[in-house]
């Protein structure tokens, strides 16, 4: 009877939802930080804005495909059930996606807007009325979007954490773990995109900003994973048994090797190595392109693996005594 009900699609969706949240957060922050009344990292903010809505839009599509009756997804929006994390989440995700697309629109340049609307038949006058400049809304949309992006980041964790029957998930640390993992993968994805964009080569102060952001988020994530393990080991029998899945069970290798070491510690080490001389020795920031690429890719892989481990291991954990059919 004990089977896996949520599979890879859910893992991908949780990852993409978190990624969007992180991209929006990083972009909003980059736009908010000012030097001489001008955004200090305007190009970072623009890149983040252009990327942010897409992962969550694709992820929501995958989520709908995963339903038993995908065409009934509209029923999610016929109800609001505050006790159901998924109900709250669907509304939150929709609001966030709308805000993220508006934010993207506010960052489009004049010629980009003209190009998009040139593709729409001229007879569709109603749509052409939308061809307006809302670049003055950037800051407002960013501010409105902040709580929503954090909400989406937390939601992906709460969806699992609020299930009281799965001791692997049901701790008060999973929400924060997923949030910081989401924010760090957002910063990493932004760094990756900026480094790969050869037309507009990334500048050192921009790399430094994103690397700093990532170091902060990875450190916070680490400081949540450690208490998650320690507290779980000091908890009740069911929680301890659930943790055995990663401390001597089917997920031990993938948790400690690919996720914790390669996905968190190695990129953290690379980024700290990059930042160290600039912060403590007063020297210039390295800004190595290859190291940035490596660290950012590893962070993204780590973020994906965290969700993979949690979705699968969580479903295997249970309070139910293991009674089954005799062999």
């Amino acid at each position: 009877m004990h089977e896996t009900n949520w599979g890879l699609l859910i893992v991908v969706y949780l990852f993409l939802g978190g990624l969007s949240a992180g991209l929006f957060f990083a972009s909003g922050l980059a736009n908010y930080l000012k030097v001489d009344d001008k955004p200090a990292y305007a190009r970072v903010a623009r890149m983040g804005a252009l990327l942010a809505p897409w992962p969550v839009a694709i992820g929501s599509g995958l989520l709908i495909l995963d339903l038993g009756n995908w065409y009934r997804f509209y029923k999610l929006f016929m109800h609001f059930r505050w006790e159901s994390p998924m109900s709250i989440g669907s509304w939150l995700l929709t609001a966030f996606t709308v805000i993220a697309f508006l934010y993207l629109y506010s960052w489009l340049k004049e010629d980009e807007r003209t190009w998009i609307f040139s593709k729409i038949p001229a007879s569709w006058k109603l749509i052409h009325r939308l061809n307006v400049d809302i670049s003055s809304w950037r800051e407002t949309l960013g501010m409105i979007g902040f709580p929503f992006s954090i909400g989406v980041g937390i939601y992906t964790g709460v969806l699992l954490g609020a299930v009281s029957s799965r001791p692997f998930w049901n701790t008060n640390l999973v929400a924060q773990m997923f949030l910081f993992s989401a924010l760090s993968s957002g910063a990493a994805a932004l760094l990756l995109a900026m480094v790969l964009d050869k037309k507009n080569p990334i500048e050192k102060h921009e790399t430094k900003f994103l690397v700093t952001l990532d170091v902060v988020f990875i450190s916070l994530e680490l400081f949540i994973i450690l208490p998650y393990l320690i507290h779980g080991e000091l908890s009740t029998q069911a929680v301890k048994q659930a943790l055995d899945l990663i401390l001597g069970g089917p997920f031990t290798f993938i948790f400690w090797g690919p996720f914790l070491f390669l996905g968190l510690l190695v990129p953290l080490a690379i980024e700290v190595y990059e930042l160290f001389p600039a912060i403590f020795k007063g020297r210039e920031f390295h800004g190595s392109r290859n190291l940035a690429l490596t660290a950012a890719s590893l962070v993204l892989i780590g973020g994906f693996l965290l969700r993979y481990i949690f979705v699968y291991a969580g479903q295997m954990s249970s309070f139910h005594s293991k009674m089954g059919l005799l062999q």
Partner: protein
Amino acid sequence: MAMKKKRYALVIDSRKCLNCKACVVACKAENKVPVGHFRNRINEERKGEYPTLSINFEPEQCHHCDEPSCVRVCPTGASWQRKDGIVLVNYDECIGCRYCMIACPYDARYFNEEEGVVDKCTFCVQRVDKGEVPACVETCPSKVRVFGDLEDPKSRIRELLATRRYKVKEPQTGNGPQLYYLL
């Protein structure tokens, strides 16, 4: 006159269970459960090695909990609970997200791939509403299961729960399960 309050529950005397699985078959026939899925099951547990050996059989199905976590997490309200305690799925509202299956501590639900909806034991509402007992209860040759209304002071299950010692499974999940296992 107001209807009297009801609370259906099941008492299980698992020491009487022979593991004949007549209940499983009766349920499948009564509720047309698709091939490969079951609404009830008999857990088997072996202790020790020959010659000091014992085998326990323990029938299990939906516990029709007082605080059902499946109902709480359902995003559309498709999982719902009747006033008499029976937990049901409204198949027209179910979108097939399977969140309830994950939230159930007892693994009592299954996913009907053909219909794309989640399904489970209904205590045979179609029979109970006519004053009959669920198919699994009726068919059991050794009378393991006793079905009844906890609010009715004269019912057999009230008598059993008052005079016998019993346990419920995993009460620590806070679901308030309503399958009572006699000890």
